[in-house]
């Protein structure tokens, strides 16, 4: 049904596509997005901790949007080739010119031919991808989380609250494929950040710093608001109170990373198991090869791509080609045993279709956190990088160290570290890696990038990492 303000609807679009003889296949995504955001801060005139740290509400936003994305494939006069293009359509302008331009443009492109699956699944697996509280009552949920933020700020008596943000996102997408498949997907996301600062007082030279803790998740249970605030407040204060923070000495270290960095590194390198890389002659590790060349000591990687992980960052029941997504073992004790192959690349390379999306699930090790920080004479435990940059092709990474602890097995205890940078290589530093036995989940969403999900060791000890002090 159209309103006076809309020129057409999805049924009109499908009808128009079916009536175009050059059109071979299509995929339509029709998404409704609802997003709420609040930004809190302290009153700027209050520079230090006061009795009342009630945050003021700096900004309050609500967003409602609707998008229609069409991927259309057209027949070309060349054998085994087809044209295709992706286009965002608007219902506020007539359909015919938009569709005509999409088909005209698609006819100018040139792709190897692929086909949507003939078999349509009749039932989709139940995969938890959306928190009902966010989906069904986003306003009330925002108010509840805002109260938790205010409460968390009020609990803190030593560090100064600076700012906080909360985002809640609810997305519902109807998908229509030309092979007759129609399915709905629902996704939610939540984000919280907390920034605290701390400053010494008295006659000593003033030392001040701040710490920003951030967290993404799909559901509220995985968004530990209170501990995010506590962590930020403690991590800014403890190093300064210890009164001895130093830069690391330049050298090679064993480096202990947390789940957020582990997720980024492993999600990046797993891309080299994607058949799309094989087709495009990008770096590709094939079945039968070692995942980490020369890895023979420590904990060997066993990785599964799991799209069914409850509230995982990259969980989904079915992909955009209409293929049911299932867990796929990619690496088994460092041997590559699987490739990520979508329908498209299955047709291109004559390989079996496998799962094309999922969370990186890593088998844990056997060591506790205490065993990991004493595994070597010196272990540099990274609490926060300034911003890790990863080269997915080379498998290298680097970052300045925002905050770390240098554990000394011989002397016992640790020294606070700030500054310096690391320069690493996944292939080199995972060779003798050790994994914690405790596992936890991590989700991350970055603009213009695919969602990232992880479930695996909470800590990973990398070896032989270059550090500049």
């Amino acid at each position, binding site marked *: 049904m159209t309103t*006076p*303000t809309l020129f057409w609807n999805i049924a009109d679009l499908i009808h128009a596509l079916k009536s175009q003889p050059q059109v071979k296949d299509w995929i339509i995504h029709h998404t409704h997005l609802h*997003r709420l955001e609040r930004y809190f*801060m302290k*009153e*700027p*005139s209050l*520079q230090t901790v006061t009795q009342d740290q009630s945050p*003021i*509400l*700096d*900004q*309050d*936003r*609500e*967003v*409602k*949007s*609707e998008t229609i994305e069409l991927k259309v494939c057209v027949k070309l006069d060349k054998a085994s080739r087809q044209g295709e*293009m992706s286009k*965002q*359509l*608007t219902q506020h302008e007539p359909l015919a010119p938009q569709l005509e*331009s*999409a088909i005209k*443009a698609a006819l*100018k*492109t*040139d*792709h*190897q031919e692929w086909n949507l699956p003939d078999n349509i699944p009749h039932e989709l697996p139940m995969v938890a991808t959306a928190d009902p509280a966010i989906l069904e009552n986003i306003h009330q949920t925002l108010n509840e989380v805002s109260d938790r933020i205010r409460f968390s700020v009020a609990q803190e008596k030593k560090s100064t609250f*600076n*700012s906080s943000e909360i985002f809640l996102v609810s997305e519902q997408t109807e998908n229509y494929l030309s092979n007759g498949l129609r399915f709905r997907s629902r996704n939610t996301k939540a984000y919280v950040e907390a920034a605290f*600062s701390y400053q010494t007082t008295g006659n000593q030279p003033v030392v*001040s710093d*701040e710490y920003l803790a951030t967290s993404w998740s799909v559901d509220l249970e995985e968004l530990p608001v209170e501990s995010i605030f506590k962590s930020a407040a403690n991590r800014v204060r403890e190093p300064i109170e210890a009164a001895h923070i130093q830069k690391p000495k330049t050298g090679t270290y064993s480096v202990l990373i947390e789940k957020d960095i582990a997720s980024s590194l492993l999600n990046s390198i797993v891309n080299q198991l994607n058949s799309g890389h094989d087709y*495009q*002659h*990008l770096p590709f590790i094939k079945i039968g090869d070692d995942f980490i060349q020369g890895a023979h000591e420590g904990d060997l990687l066993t990785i599964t791509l799991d799209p069914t992980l409850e509230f995982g960052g990259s969980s989904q029941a079915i992909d955009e080609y209409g293929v049911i997504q299932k867990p796929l073992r990619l690496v088994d004790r460092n041997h590559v045993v699987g490739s990520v192959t979508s329908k498209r690349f299955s047709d291109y390379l004559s390989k079996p279709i496998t799962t094309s999306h999922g969370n990186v699930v890593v088998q844990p090790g056997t060591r506790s956190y205490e065993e990991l920080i004493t595994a070597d004479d010196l272990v540099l435990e990274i609490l926060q990088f*300034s*911003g890790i*940059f990863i*080269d997915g*092709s*080379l498998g*290298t*990474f*680097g*970052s*300045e160290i*925002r905050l770390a602890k240098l554990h000394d097995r011989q002397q016992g205890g640790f020294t606070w570290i700030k*500054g310096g*940078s690391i*320069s*690493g*290589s996944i292939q080199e530093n995972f060779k003798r890696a050790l994994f914690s036995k405790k596992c936890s989940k991590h989700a991350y*969403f*970055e*603009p213009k990038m695919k969602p990232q999900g992880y479930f695996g060791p909470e800590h990973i000890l990398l070896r032989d990492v270059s550090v*500049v002090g």
Partner: protein
Amino acid sequence: MKNASLSVEMTKLRQQLPDLLGTLEAHPDWYGSIYVERKKSQTHLATLQQTQISDQFSLGAVLRIYDGYTLYEHALDQLDHTSLQKEAQLFVKKVKAHQPSTTTNQKLQKHLYQPPTWATRLQAQLDPAIASQIPNAVDAKTPVHFGISYQQDPFIFTSEQRLDQLKSILSRVQATALTSGPSAVELSYVMARESLSLEESLFIDRESNLSQTLYRISLTVIAMSGSNRSFARIGGLGGYEAITLEDSTLHELLKNLHDIKTAERLKPGRYQVLVGPVVAGVIAHEAFGHAQEGDTCARGRSKAWELYHTREKVGNEHATILNNPAVFKNGTESCAAWGSYFFDEEGWLAQSQVLLDQGVLKAPMTNFTSALRLNVPRTANGKRESWEHGVYTRQTNTYFSPGPHTLEQLMSKVQDGFLATEPAGGMEDPKGMGIQVGIQFLREIKNGQLTGRVFKGPAGGDIQLTGYVPDVLNSIVAKSKIEFNSTSPDQAQHPYNDVGGCGKYHKEFVYAGCGGTYMLLNDTILG
């Protein structure tokens, strides 16, 4: 040169919007405004296996009410008159329901806002590209349109012509490879991508009715040999002339790829380094830069705010950094720089701003709320990733001021150091004043000459230039002219700013230009 006009669709929409202001300003203390954004972009891509096209379209409005305490925004894409009125009324009801109680009022500081009149706006020093498009006798009701200037209309080419052009670039890369080092068979992946977008925006409040049309165009060429990668990227705001690809650019792309493949690994340490304009721009962006973003200052998260008040020096006499959204001629080119516009997304007209003056910090860049909370002058730095995202204080084109030297003169000062021209990202710690600038590779210089040796990082990846911002800014030895290969005085007004982007708090992405001139630094930590 022509100026881009406002589309028919946006012109129609503009006519209905002023009526909404009365609805939004439902209380005498409230300030209401409306922002509308329409973006149509098209990407054409060619690789050795296929060609691809994708179109994106986005149209949305942001209704805003500022009540003296909080900025409320309601963003939507149902833009017919009936829906807009209905949503505006619901929005006002929501804001009324959120008003703080009398008790809370006593604790909070109210910052009321009166928008500037045109008489006030015109007192500012505006770039001629802006001033020339403001009608005479302008008042609150006058629709004022700013259009980017261009020579070659970028929209006249068909998709077939664009794809043919990209395929010819692939052929040029393969042909050039035969003479430039790696033989054609060693190229494992080649890609050429053209992106073109038409960006229009409207900003309306009780004192102004503004619109702008920008043409944003870029060309990226990537060549890979195994895992090693080299790329070239050109572009700007304007016409097709912004993406003229010279053979010399392709030669450099392939030479870099060849040299990266045989690069040695750098031993971490302190070195003399001659950074190119884009790397210098990344240093400026990350240094002051991010710490000079007003919302970061207002949130108590920047050391720069304290140092601005104490006037403690954070750099030497060469350390002058500007942020300027009004770079309508990019270096010696006729197109505008990537981070430019006529007004920001909160309706403030673009102007150049000195952030750091010979090592002394000036007032920060601001968006609407941070200017009010910090009680500093507003600047045109309120930007969003899109209408669906919130506004933050964001950089536009950030660069060091030029110096007096030629490149040759700077090279002659390097006894034992490196040349760094290709950046690989950057990051900052605005409170701790740590800086991190990624560099793809280094070329060794000894006694003023390139030795031919090339270095990657200690692990074979990018090199990180890190340190404490004041240390880095105090280590600047000399800077080049804008026209660094000429001994004559600079004709160009602004240094060249490269095509780039910026992510804030790891989630909000906006376009930004990074540039400057060649800059020689002593004793710099590389590893």
